């Protein structure tokens, strides 16, 4: 199963909106996301920074949250995403 990462911020409204979508996807499709809060945990922030060359070209040149990353394929999606779109992305080989 692919290693899927979600970077999010505690006070980011887009992240708050995406959290139930992610949880629904986890429950319904059995997909697991490793979740990393990046403003209150410096280790998590450093982890996100370590993916900067992969994330920024696909996220307007910046490190933004929420960001979803497939750590095996380096496929990235950022921002608020509809359930179906996120599901298709997460299930993509």
């Amino acid at each position, binding site marked *: 199963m692919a290693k899927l990462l979600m970077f999010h*911020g505690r006070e980011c409204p887009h*992240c708050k909106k995406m959290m139930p979508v992610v949880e629904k996807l986890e429950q319904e499709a059995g997909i697991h996301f490793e979740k990393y809060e990046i*403003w*209150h945990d410096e280790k998590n*922030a450093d982890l996100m920074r370590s993916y900067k060359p992969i994330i920024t070209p696909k996220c307007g040149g910046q490190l*933004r949250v929420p960001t979803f990353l497939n750590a095996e394929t380096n496929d990235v999606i950022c921002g608020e995403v509809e359930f179906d779109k996120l599901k298709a992305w997460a299930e993509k080989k």
Partner: protein
Amino acid sequence: MKKRYWRCFICNDVHYGIAPPEICPTCQVLNAYVEITAEEARKFLGGGPNITFEVVDFEKAIERFAAGQEFMVNPEGEKVKTLLQGIFENERNHGFKYCPCRLRTKDPEEDLKLVCPCNFTIHETYRGVANGECWCGLFVRRR
């Protein structure tokens, strides 16, 4: 062109920029600015009164900032409340009012671009977008 420090010789306002304001915004005197060193600027700025600036002050500041612009503060109050909480937490924990929906790179110059309000009008989430907004959604195109 490099930014420099300037001081109004009448009221000691300090300006940081490529050129000084033609008219001092505080005392309204024409051509009143003289270039000074960074050390002098720090002394003038550091010796000023300690002005408290709470969330409510920032709310007023961004309302004034958006007044008459093509954008406005997001009318969704809960969203704004969450964002302001994050902005102030970031100032407490990381030194500046960083956007809660982005991450510092640890490059000090680069990270100044994340301080709220940022220059969102050039971002792809706002420029040329009918319902454009800044990345975090604190500012939205006026409807």
